[in-house]
């Protein structure tokens, strides 16, 4: 671990953006590991600007009704459902 650790508050902020809770041990570990990994990513600065070929194209199809999962199938892996809908956490 050669690089100075990333500020733990920054790790917590990113974890918050990503909706992943972390315990204090994970924050400490990631602060150290991210310093090394980000220092390595920083070498991308040396990459020259490259003319990119515009090879990506949109592939479109008509928006027609097709066979799909039944409502029952779509719901079968949900922990909670109600009246044929997914049920999220209770807000209170």
């Amino acid at each position, binding site marked *: 671990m050669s690089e100075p650790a990333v500020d733990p508050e920054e790790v917590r902020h990113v974890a918050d953006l990503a909706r992943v809770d*972390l315990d204090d041990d994970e924050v400490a570990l990631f602060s150290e590991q991210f310093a090394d990994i980000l220092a390595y990513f920083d070498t991308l*600065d040396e990459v020259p600007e490259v003319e990119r070929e515009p090879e990506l194209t949109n592939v479109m199809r008509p928006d027609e009704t097709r066979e799909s999962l039944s409502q029952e199938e779509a719901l079968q892996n949900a922990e909670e459902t109600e009246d044929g809908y997914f049920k999220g*956490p209770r807000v209170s």
Partner: protein
Amino acid sequence: MSGTYNGYITEETIEGADDGPLVGKTVAVKDNISTEGVPTTCGSAMLDDYVPPYDATVVARLKDAGATIPGKTNMDEFGMGTTTETSAFGATENPAAEGHVPGGSSGGSAAVVAAGDADLALGTDTGGSVRCPAAFCGVVGIKPTYGLVSRYGLVAYANSLEQIGPLAPTVEEAAELLEVIAGPDENDATTRDATEQNTDYDFAAAADGDVDGLSIGVPTELVEGADEEVVDTFWDAIDELEAQGATYHEVDLPSVEHAVEAYYVIAMSEASSNLARFDGVRYGTSGGYEGNWNESFAKAREEGFGPEVKRRILLGTYALSAGYQDKYYKKAQDARAWVKQDFDEALDDADVLASPTMPVPPFERGESLDDPLKMYLADANTTPVNLANLPAISVPAGETSDGLPVGLQLVGPAFGEKTIIRAGSALA
């Protein structure tokens, strides 16, 4: 037997059709590929009781071809790892090298083939996840050209990089399996028809071992710095190809010095977006928390994801966050375009490019878990191929003096599967 090295997460037989090219063959399937009615966990506690309501396109094609699927193979959680040690269902051991990892992330697929518990297997390759375990377990693995094989029903990790590919004891058998799974699919708009790319799907017939006149380019950057015994084994394999009529020349690919960091920035960024879907509401583990939704989801995700997955989601979120996108994500896309250019130019003057598949022999178990950067750097030779969207094969090249398997990687031009299959079949 498979219990002793933990190759499968689920052992449940799925029968195929009564006739077809794979009748009588068992084909194990990596556990991030959807199988209707059979659990598909991605090696994660988040999905430990997820049962897909539909088959991936490749699974439907296996069944139509008459294959028997003996089970779902162990893997690094969501494909994130190079050792198959990040699985929530325990690590897989290497049946070909006791005490060592099988490589990853498709370690279970390579292990069941190496142990002879399945005839063939499917893996997925995002940055080397078919080729690395093939090399470490002494079997053959193919990463197809981006768009050759449908990804419909593959649980996404990094869509722009990944392909499903075959693992087998020989090149010919891997080619037979590739023939079954390849081809366009209306459910995956990124698939392309090989027949519109001046080629066809007769892969198995290409495994004729004829390398007379084959021109091999050897990128010096991918050989220098590799383990000494790996390099020696690599050159022995090149000598063998030369003896059969091939020629080689060295080539420079300066861009590959930046491939690993470009790969990880892009893969982690895509992962942070793809894995946002796991909130425990539609599928996955919710933990049953109530109250503020963001907080409930954050708790469910804290419980459901392992450390490597959290690390990649966080780093990807960071690379895409305000103020850092130009510095990391955009530069990584520049590096990707540069790598692609370099490979295309080198392949103008060579039929295939050859290197060791992995710069190191199989790690000892537990060796790289505490040092993620060390694990990432082991992907130096495989990640450039995914960045360039090209096909590559790993074939057994020999062993180190300690009996550890070493793989040779051959990279071909886009939709040049037949070329790398022909070249690889001269060795295995």
